[in-house]
């Protein structure tokens, strides 16, 4: 199954290169196997070049660029073998407004054939959802679910505050 692994890896690599360009609106990136002898045991090396910058190792990228690169890898692997559903928990936390929009644009390519559930604090991401569930602890320490419309989100995330002001 070594040749199968090589084939799957090549597909993921191809996906990564195109999704990275879409998320960063340019630039280029690649992933390599560190050992070609025994592919199944090998590590993976990533290089990324945001638009207008030098090609470099992922350690030199900024916090937001690292998150965006991680999302490109996630989607690249997901595309090789899409699961029926996918759960994302605050993957947009380090992204600025512009990159949140680019992330959502790429996410839309995957939504439909697969269902997605996303936990977020970003208003733009909330606006992209079909349904919003709010979780609240009206009774302290006990979670309950309420349905929330987008325009109620501001009030909702402030409540309930037990502040002694």
């Amino acid at each position: 199954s070594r040749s199968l692994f090589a084939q799957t890896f090549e597909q993921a690599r191809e996906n990564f290169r195109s999704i990275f360009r879409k998320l960063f609106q340019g630039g280029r990136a690649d992933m390599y196997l560190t050992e070609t002898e025994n592919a199944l045991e090998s590590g993976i090396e990533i290089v990324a070049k945001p638009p207008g910058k030098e090609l470099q190792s992922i350690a030199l990228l900024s916090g937001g660029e690292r998150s965006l690169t991680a999302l490109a890898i996630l989607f690249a692997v997901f595309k090789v073998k899409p699961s029926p559903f996918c759960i994302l928990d605050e993957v947009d936390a380090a992204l600025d407004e512009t990159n949140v929009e680019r992330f959502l644009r790429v996410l839309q390519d995957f939504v439909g054939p697969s269902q997605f559930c996303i936990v977020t604090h970003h208003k733009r991401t909330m606006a992209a959802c079909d349904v919003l569930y709010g979780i609240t602890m009206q009774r302290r320490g006990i979670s309950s679910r309420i349905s929330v419309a987008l325009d109620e989100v501001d009030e909702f995330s402030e409540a309930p505050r037990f502040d002694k002001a």
Partner: protein
Amino acid sequence: MRLKRLEVRGFKSFADRTEFDFNADLTGIVGPNGCGKSNVVDALKWVLGDRSAKSLRGAEMTDVIFKGAEGREGLHQAEVTIVLENDQLGEDPVAFTPEREHPVDAPERADGESVGGEALDGEGVTDSEVPDVLVAGVQDGDETGSGDVSDVVRRTRHALVANCTELR
């Protein structure tokens, strides 16, 4: 295969029975810090077979049982049911609840006998039918938080290798 519904009761901070419909393509979960959003993600991971206490952010598996809150006693069991619709075969939605034998050495939950455990509305779903779910987040159990790109790279390797072994 589509996710229709999730029911949680006694799981982490969800002391009372709580239902989530997942008919939509993209469902958002929102709320203040510490209200229980990631606990919903953990419920989905657990019911789909994740048995690692660390990935569920606990020290041991009994940490998923509601431990109590102000003016509310802890419970003895946690139950999560997921309803999946297998649209290919036109079958009825199938409910799946994990059989959860608690390790007898569970300290504070000595009375935590088997949790959940029966298949509703039809045949139990065997493990092989349980779909793969990709879960990614910056708050995952492990210390490095899987939002970090080097962590995702490590998982990618596992995902790609697992992919091949399954297809073998």
